[in-house]
């Protein structure tokens, strides 16, 4: 203390920055308040910084590194002054009267907050030994200058005087003249339980007509005899005797401290839990409205005195409250965050303090880092959004006290609540609902700050904002809490329904998209880590290395589909198309995510905000090895993250994420004022287009300035030779209007056309009338209109307009170019769909050749010139039913044959064209079906994999191999193909080896990769290879999807192999996706068959080789090997029911209904052995199941070629079929060692309970021996690829067997050698040469 400099308040005010000082900088006494000692010698300094720059010299040389921290004064300093109540007429900022005392020194006075409050401190001079000083911000006007002194330690400057138990506070001392002459009878002794904030009410009986300012206090008094008798002894203060144990302070009484005694509130707030004596009270019946309350009212003689008897009944520290209860609950914690202008305060990073009135908190000292204690709060655990949280909710009885100051200056967060509609709305809610709305406010502000103004989001005093509109929609009546007056809430607190918290399960969090993206990454990482953990635990990671060629790696892929129910939050954002890829995205100010909307309609507006409650989140990627410690995502979806507006950034590059939802399940929340109206000008002439193709997004060649102005999205359409005409003057056509019932019906914005016309040809000129022979009904949503379908004369065009001959008709083919503002129409476009294009000409007829719409064979689609989808029906019947014919049946048959269980998690990404009418803008009902059927060209055929293979083989027979010599480009036909993508992998051109599937992950969207895609249906797989631009790959383009490939080139390579090749115009449309959780347990693994080429042609094209050459061929190149069957390595024979076996296939293959899911044969080419695996058909041929049993089972066996029999019942397979019908499944294993495999080590096992007789065993042995004794075969095979390896590995592991350590190959084709034919061929070749 010696040598401490005394600062004056004026010095601090002049410094005008947060300061902290102490009288001693050496040690801090443990005692909170040192015993009063004789005042030390103090050195009064002149702190004029021009002469004695004590304070400022301490500040200036060492600039504070943290501008928000209180600057410590390096020298011992103290303050001398007097603490008193704030004078009633002081110029205080609002809220100070609830918490602040006054500290005056010299001529200055500041607000004051004393940590270790002692009632004796009032009106006595003290030396402040440790303090913080926080000046008010003049700019913001808080406090209007001045500051607050936070007193940490102090002592009296004068000599110590023992507290005499006299009045602590007296109304007389502050000059109260209120009722000083009236009879004052009441006195109360009790424990202060709670106090209200200072409030103002109109006081009806007050003579001056002014308002009454005061606060309420709840005192728990004791009703024991001693207390009652003591109270009767008026005028004696030392009346209260006895210990705590004899008194029961249980009876609540209410005291109303009226003006000017409301200045006592800061003192009373320090008295909570303490025993006080209040005298000079007057018992009154206070009428508030129709309610009356019996309470004690302060008078001009009211005094407050303390008794040394402290109850100490209220515990401190930790949570001591029950859910919903208010009384006696206490929580002490550190402020870790103040959000939403002080309405939400985070304590200890684990609970949230929901403050209903900002004045509750001592706002000067209510800063982050301070330790506060909260008394009398309501403990609420909201149950919404599947996030566990604890809320401490304040009410009129809550008291917040600061226990330790923070040395961080955070700007004054507490703001007086505005009287906006939103503020009133929030106050009318229950605690949980209020908290949810505050979360909404924070989230909305973060998400839509770039789309909407703050007023649009929050509203104003007169108009609801977006938040309130949205919240009102989802809050139930139970979420509203009736408001009562302060007297009612304070005095009849328990009856004010504070305990009723409604069930808020329907309320979900609205999160910023950046948080969603990070949440996706977190889900992905946790999923992968769990897999890793499970794999390590189970030790099941069997090694596939023995199967895999050197230098290749296994392709692995995972897709997870997570429903919104499991996530607990909803998505809000605008639907936009990204440029230049044209992908659909959900966008907010924090980020964007790709979306897939199967029922996208044309009136989606990118300026509107859509709410998506039901959706599926799709995550897909390669399960790369992750380090557990590598990814710490922190609190992503916690309330803290939302309040803090925590912005996340994408960290994982190896996953793709997108959201799938239907527009019908979404709500249009906000219609932007800048959104163009969706008026449909249903007047005039419309061209009818059929979209033939959509071109994938091009990259515009950014290096070439010529291309900068080019669009990146194009489509090709046929202009049908008929126009739709809706004459303007032929009826009462009303302009269309938008009906937005977004709030009432919670539906998507409906566009309703009110057109009440019936078009006719009556107003047309005679020359035009002749064309109008096709009446049609034209419906738009729920309304309809009538017009005419008029023929448009199509002349042979010049070179700019191409012709397409479809069904003998000449339709003009045009290019649709999509401008950047109309990318949404590109997304809407369906290949095979019909669209209307408004003709720019004014006439009622239009010659397509001369029409400006198609000048240069191209039409630009922009926001003015839009396309409207139209479904054409004939007398109410959808035309797609009749015209799709073959390909639809084939496509759908693939689905029909598949077990539905496999597609339990299948998501439809694009609705079938058959359902086009469900999303089309217009329905065009053609009434004259007979005539108009010929108008519509047939849609392009989409092939299934099987039919594609058939076509390839057919082409092979008819046209042979195209001579490509001298040509740069491959030749062939462009086809459309539909099937399941089983595998997608990069095809490294140099080594032609497979590498891990990692494309689509890089940031360079223009990168072009050489890929190979396996597309399968039930029975067959084809490969499509070539170069694909990243932009051509649609969302979800990974394995495990059903996709349609438009304009794939079916070509015949120089090696004679048919191949499907991607071209730059190949458009990929994803039809549906399904979950791929683990590729090892993938049930939908298609039996690895290969292209089926007629064997007679193979002999001409496939080179003859040896097994050694075959297995060394890294690219699974087909090789023909002449060999014989040595024995079987492994056979699984199953009875095949009618359902799972295509009878057509059985008939074609001449094999019985025997399924052979796995078959491994040991083959010998004369040089080496090789284990050849084959599918059912090939295995059947190798087992010679089609041979006549009479020859096989008799010694007089004569074998000629295949030895086929025309009658199935005479075949070997028929006998096998009968046996399998009995046993269901028979497994044949060869336990011989690799070098000496023979038929002697075969074992047989069956699934059935029936006895596997020796005759049956003999039959099987006969069949196998017959296969071994057959003549030499030609097989066409290839090395096992990774896909086959995975399948084989999985199957064999399930059957608890292994693979012999010999070469393995896959048999694609089996050919019985006809020696005679071969001899003739040889002779022929010799003759030629």
């Amino acid at each position: 203390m010696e040598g401490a400099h005394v600062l004056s308040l004026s010095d601090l005010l002049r410094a005008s920055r947060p300061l902290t000082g102490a009288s001693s900088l050496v040690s801090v006494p443990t005692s909170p308040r040192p015993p009063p000692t004789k005042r030390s010698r103090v050195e009064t300094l002149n702190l004029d910084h021009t002469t004695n720059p004590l304070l400022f010299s301490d500040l200036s040389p060492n600039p504070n590194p943290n501008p928000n921290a209180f600057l410590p004064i390096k020298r011992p300093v103290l303050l001398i002054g007097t603490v008193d109540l704030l004078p009633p007429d002081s110029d205080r900022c609002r809220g100070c009267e609830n918490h602040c005392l006054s500290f005056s020194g010299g001529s200055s006075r500041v607000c004051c907050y004393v940590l270790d409050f002692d009632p004796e401190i009032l009106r006595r001079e003290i030396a402040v030994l440790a303090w913080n000083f926080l000046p008010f911000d003049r700019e913001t006007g808080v406090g209007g200058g001045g500051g607050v002194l936070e007193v940490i330690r102090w002592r009296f400057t004068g000599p110590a005087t023992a507290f005499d138990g006299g009045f602590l506070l007296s109304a007389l001392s502050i000059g109260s003249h209120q009722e000083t002459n009236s009879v004052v009878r009441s006195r109360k002794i009790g424990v202060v339980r709670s106090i209200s904030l200072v409030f103002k009410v109109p006081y009806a009986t007050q003579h001056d007509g002014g308002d009454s300012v005061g606060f309420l206090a709840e005192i728990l008094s004791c009703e024991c005899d001693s207390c009652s008798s003591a109270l009767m002894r008026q005028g004696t203060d030392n009346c209260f005797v006895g210990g705590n144990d004899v008194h029961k302070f249980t009876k609540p009484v209410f005291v109303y401290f009226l003006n000017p005694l409301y200045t006592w509130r800061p003192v009373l707030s320090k008295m909570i839990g303490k025993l006080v004596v209040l005298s000079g009270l007057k018992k009154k019946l206070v009428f508030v409205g129709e309610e009356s309350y019996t309470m004690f009212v302060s008078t001009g003689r009211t005094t407050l005195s303390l008794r040394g008897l402290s109850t100490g009944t209220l515990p401190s520290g930790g949570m001591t409250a029950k859910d919903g209860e208010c009384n006696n609950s206490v929580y002490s914690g550190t402020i870790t965050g103040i959000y939403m202008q002080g309405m939400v305060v985070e304590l200890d990073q684990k609970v949230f303090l929901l403050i209903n009135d900002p004045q509750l908190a001592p706002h000067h000292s209510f800063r982050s880092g301070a330790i506060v204690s909260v008394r009398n709060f309501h403990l609420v655990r909201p149950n919404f959004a599947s996030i566990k949280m604890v809320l401490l909710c304040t009410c009129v009885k809550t008291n917040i006290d600061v226990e330790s100051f923070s040395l961080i200056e955070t700007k004054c967060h507490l703001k007086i609540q505005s009287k906006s509609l939103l503020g009133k709305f929030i106050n009318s809610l229950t605690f949980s609902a209020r908290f949810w709305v505050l979360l909404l406010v924070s989230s909305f502000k973060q998400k839509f700050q770039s789309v909407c103004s703050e007023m649009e989001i929050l509203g104003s005093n007169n108009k609801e904002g977006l938040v309130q509109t949205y919240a009102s929609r989802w809050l139930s009546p139970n979420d509203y809490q009736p408001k009562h007056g302060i007297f009612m809430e304070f005095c009849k607190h328990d009856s004010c329904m504070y305990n009723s918290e409604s069930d808020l399960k329907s309320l979900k969090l609205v999160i910023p998209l950046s948080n969603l993206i990070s949440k996706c990454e977190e889900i992905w990482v946790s999923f992968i880590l769990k897999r890793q953990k499970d794999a390590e635990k189970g030790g099941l990671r069997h090694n596939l290395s023995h199967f895999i060629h050197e230098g290749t790696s296994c392709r692995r892929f995972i897709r997870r589909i997570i429903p919104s129910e499991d996530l607990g939050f909803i998505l809000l954002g605008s639907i936009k198309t990204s440029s230049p890829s044209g992908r659909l995205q959900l966008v907010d100010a924090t980020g964007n995510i790709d979306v897939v909307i199967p029922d996208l309609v044309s009136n989606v507006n990118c300026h509107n905000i859509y709410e998506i409650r039901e959706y599926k989140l799709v995550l897909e990627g390669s399960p790369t090895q992750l380090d557990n410690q590598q990814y710490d995502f922190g609190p992503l979806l916690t309330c803290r993250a939302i309040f803090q507006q925590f912005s996340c950034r994408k960290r994982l590059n190896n996953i793709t994420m997108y959201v799938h939802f239907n527009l019908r399940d979404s709500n249009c929340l906000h219609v932007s004022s800048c959104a163009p109206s969706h008026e449909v000008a249903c007047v005039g002439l419309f061209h009818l287009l059929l979209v033939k193709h959509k071109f994938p997004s091009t990259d515009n060649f950014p290096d070439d300035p010529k291309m900068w102005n080019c669009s990146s999205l194009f489509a090709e359409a046929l202009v049908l030779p008929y126009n739709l005409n809706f004459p303007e003057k032929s009826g009462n056509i009303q302009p269309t209007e938008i009906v937005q019932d977004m709030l009432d019906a919670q539906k998507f914005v409906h566009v309703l056309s009110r057109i009440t016309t019936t078009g006719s040809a009556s107003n047309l000129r005679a020359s035009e009338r002749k064309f109008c022979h096709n009446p049609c009904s034209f419906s738009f949503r729920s309304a309809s209109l009538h017009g005419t379908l008029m023929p448009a004369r199509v002349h042979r065009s010049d070179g700019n307009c191409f012709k397409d001959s479809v069904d003998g008709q000449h339709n003009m083919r045009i290019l649709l170019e999509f401008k950047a503002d109309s990318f949404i129409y590109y997304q809407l476009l369906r290949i095979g769909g019909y669209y209307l294009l408004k003709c720019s000409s004014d006439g009622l007829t239009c010659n397509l050749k001369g029409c400006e719409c198609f000048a240069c064979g191209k039409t630009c689609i922009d926001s003015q010139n839009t396309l409207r989808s139209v479904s054409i029906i004939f007398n109410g019947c959808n035309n797609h039913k009749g015209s799709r014919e073959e390909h639809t049946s084939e496509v759908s048959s693939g689905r029909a044959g598949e077990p539905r269980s496999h597609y339990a998690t299948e998501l439809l990404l694009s609705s079938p064209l058959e359902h086009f009418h469900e999303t089309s803008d217009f329905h065009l009902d053609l009434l004259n079906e007979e005539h108009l059927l010929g108008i519509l060209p047939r849609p392009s055929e989409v092939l299934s994999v099987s039919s594609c293979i058939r076509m390839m083989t057919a082409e092979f027979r008819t046209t042979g191999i195209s001579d490509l010599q001298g040509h740069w480009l491959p030749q062939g036909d462009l086809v459309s193909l539909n099937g399941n993508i089983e595998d997608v992998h990069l095809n490294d051109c140099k080594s032609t080896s497979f590498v891990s599937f990692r494309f689509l992950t890089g940031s360079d969207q223009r990168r072009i990769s050489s890929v190979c895609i396996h597309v399968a249906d039930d029975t067959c797989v084809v490969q499509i290879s070539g170069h694909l631009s990243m932009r051509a790959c649609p969302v979800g383009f990974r394995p495990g999807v059903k996709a349609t490939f438009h304009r794939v080139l079916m070509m015949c390579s120089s090696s004679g192999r048919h191949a499907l090749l991607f071209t730059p115009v190949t458009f990929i449309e994803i039809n549906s996706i399904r979950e791929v959780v683990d590729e090892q347990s993938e049930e939908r693994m298609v039996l690895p068959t290969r292209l089926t080429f007629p064997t007679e042609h193979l002999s001409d094209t496939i080179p003859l080789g040896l097994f050694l050459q075959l297995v060394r061929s890294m690219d699974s190149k087909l090789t023909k090997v002449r060999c014989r069957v040595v024995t079987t390595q492994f056979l699984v024979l199953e009875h095949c029911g009618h359902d799972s076996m295509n009878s057509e296939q059985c008939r074609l293959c001449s094999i019985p209904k025997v399924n052979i899911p796995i078959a491994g044969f040991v083959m010998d080419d004369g040089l080496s052995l090789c284990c050849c695996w084959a599918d059912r058909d090939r295995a059947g041929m190798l087992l010679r199941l089609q041979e006549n049993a009479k020859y096989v089972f008799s010694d007089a066996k004569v074998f000629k070629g295949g030895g086929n029999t025309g009658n199935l019942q005479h075949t070997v397979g028929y006998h096998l079929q009968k046996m399998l019908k009995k046993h269901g499944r028979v497994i044949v294993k060869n336990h011989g060692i690799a070098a000496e495999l023979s038929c002697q080590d075969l074992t047989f096992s069956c699934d059935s309970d029936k006895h596997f007789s020796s005759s049956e065993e003999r039959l099987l042995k006969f069949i196998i021996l017959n296969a071994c004794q057959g003549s030499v075969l030609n097989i066409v095979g290839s090395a096992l690829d990774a896909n086959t390896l995975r399948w084989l590995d999985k199957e064999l592991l399930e059957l608890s067997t292994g693979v012999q350590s010999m070469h393995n190959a896959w048999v694609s084709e089996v050919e019985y050698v006809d020696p005679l034919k071969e001899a003739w061929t040889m002779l022929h070749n010799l003759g030629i040469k």
Partner: protein
Amino acid sequence: MASSAIKPGTLVTLQELEPSSPMFKQGASLRVTGKLQEYSVETAVAVISDSGASLKIDTRHLRDVVFRIGSIYQFIGELLIQSDDDAILQARVGRNVDGIDLNLYYQSLQLRRQFEAEFSNSTRT
């Protein structure tokens, strides 16, 4: 066979036809597009230009092609390089392509070349 000697006209832009270009070869079969700048009835030589580059076209073998200055034409023929790198295309096919979107045309050309290169690489490996 004579027909086999006719090679397809390689698509080139006029800017690419500079002496250092690999396409600038004697006898190279090319397909060029440009706006008609000059046409001499006497010599049947036309001059087309595009983006600052021009090329002379010998149109003596063409029939039924009406030449209008300012229109856009496309020619297929063989390049005849004369002295001082003066080249002329001996057109065997010509047509008016007015209305063609040249930007789009060049975009298609680049895509095609990209495809050719990729296909050529993949078949070589």
